[in-house]
């Protein structure tokens, strides 16, 4: 029941925006059209304003304070995908109570810090997941909860399923299990807090 941590993925090297668009000779099949919608979202950390204006000596305590407050107030988006959502709700509810750690769910991505991808990412859902990720303000983190979000899990061989949500958005913490127990999700949250503290000066 440990949550593995992954470093934020680097930017893909080739930029597709500048490339000239070649008009397709024949009509694209549905699979091809879908593949275009499945391009991954690059990881783009924002630069905070205080890093540009604060003198260097003050940045260390500022980093520490900001990281402390960020890790203490991780607000996930209420985003239940599949079976894991039940365990995610259970984690927010009475017995496990993520509110103890200052973690409360918010309905809108604009107010959220963490996206808990709790369930299978299908190819039909993938554009929505990407959009939601892009709608979240920086700094933002992603927790892939469960086997399906990590690599497709039991459904990985079906061709409508994205084999892991990290194919489309950068993931910070993977929580294994099918579904993970609430304790495992809490552990994943703590691992994310640990990661925030470790990467505070980046």
């Amino acid at each position: 029941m440990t949550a593995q941590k992954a470093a934020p993925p680097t930017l893909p090297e080739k930029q597709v925006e500048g490339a000239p668009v070649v008009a397709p000779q024949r009509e694209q099949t549905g699979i091809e059209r879908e593949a275009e919608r499945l391009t991954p979202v690059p990881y783009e950390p924002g630069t905070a304003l205080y890093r540009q204006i604060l003198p260097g000596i003050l940045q260390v305590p500022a980093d520490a304070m900001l990281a402390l407050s960020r890790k203490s107030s991780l607000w996930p988006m209420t985003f239940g995908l599949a079976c894991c959502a039940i365990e995610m709700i259970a984690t927010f509810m009475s017995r496990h109570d993520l509110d103890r750690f200052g973690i409360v769910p918010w309905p809108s991505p604009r107010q959220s810090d963490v996206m808990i991808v709790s369930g299978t990412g299908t190819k039909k859902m993938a554009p929505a997941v990407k959009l939601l990720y892009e709608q979240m303000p920086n700094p933002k983190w992603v927790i892939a909860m469960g086997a399906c979000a990590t690599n497709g899990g039991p459904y990985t061989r079906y061709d409508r399923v994205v084999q892991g949500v990290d194919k489309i958005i950068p993931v910070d913490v993977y929580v294994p299990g099918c579904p993970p127990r609430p304790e495992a999700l809490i552990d994943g949250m703590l691992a994310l807090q640990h990661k925030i503290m470790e990467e505070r000066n980046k």
Partner: protein
Amino acid sequence: MVLERDPALEVVDMPINMGPQHPSTHGVFRMVLVVNGEKIVDLVPHIGYMHRGGEKLMEAMDFRQGIGYCDRTEYLAQFSAELAYCLAVERLMDLQVPERAEYIRVILTEMNRLSSHFMFAGAFGVDAGVFATSFTYAFPQREFLQEVFEEVSGDRLMYAYFRVGGLAWEVPDNFVQRVHEVLVHSAQGLKDIDDLLTKNEIFMARCQNIGNFSADQAIAYGLSGPMLRASGVPWDLRKDEPYSVYDRFNFEIPVGNYGDVYDRYLVRMEEMRQSISIIEQALEQLPPDGPIVPEKMPRRLRTPPGEVYAKVEAPRGEWGVYLVSKGGDKPYRLKMRSPSFCNLSALRDMTIGQYLADAVMILGSMDIVLCDVDR
């Protein structure tokens, strides 16, 4: 002078996209509402965001492995889904399930109905606008029930405990005592939710006389389960086509008079009381020992060619499994007739003409499971 109507002042209907990420769509359901002010003019449901091919994958797995996909498809009433699947394979293989296994199946399935309806009560309260209190009242009861499931099966959510022919292994020694303990909790939790919601005037005002569906409409749309019973059709597979040992219990089937959202809520609440009664009767009749798999259990699960449609009364309605086998150890085609799918298809007709806030309540009263809809 001629008065001209300014085209900029025309009242137009506004389409609103709700979902796939929305707090009250219970997963990744998406509906496009066309509203005129707050009134709904049209509604287009979009599903399939969780279509992950359990049926296709089960064709590639043997009969025992398929049980896990049943769990993951209907993740709130796992035992019902497993039971339907096992019944289908057992009927193809002509297996006779031992009595003790049948009773344990009934006990666990009914407990699962309790936990599923607790989930409904919690989610429905949140749809109505209670700030998560109904959830926090319902979830401890679910946790108590899940503890028993975990003691029995080893997992909190994906049990895979029913096997073709019987059960995977024997229940723990203190099973009967534990179930009795949990039933006390469940009765108390039911009372708590009753106190919080059932007689609350605002809740009644929000629920009553919206989403009405007559019996004829309900039958035509293929609704089942509490949705059908709330519309006034006294139909329960446990009574009308008894499977397992359901013909050995006395219980009552609640039937609604109005077919509205409040009736669906009441029917589910009453079903929970009946489930407690069924579990108590089953615990009384449970044979203290005996086999839990048939004596002539084959070593490999191979079915003769054939087809079978097995159905159980899941918490959400008729959960059916249409199994086609060409012989061998894999299903050739397996269709899961999920109650959520059929119930959800009636959403459009229920919702048009209601308020925007009612759409949320009507959707909540259907108690859909999105994996079950999309499969």
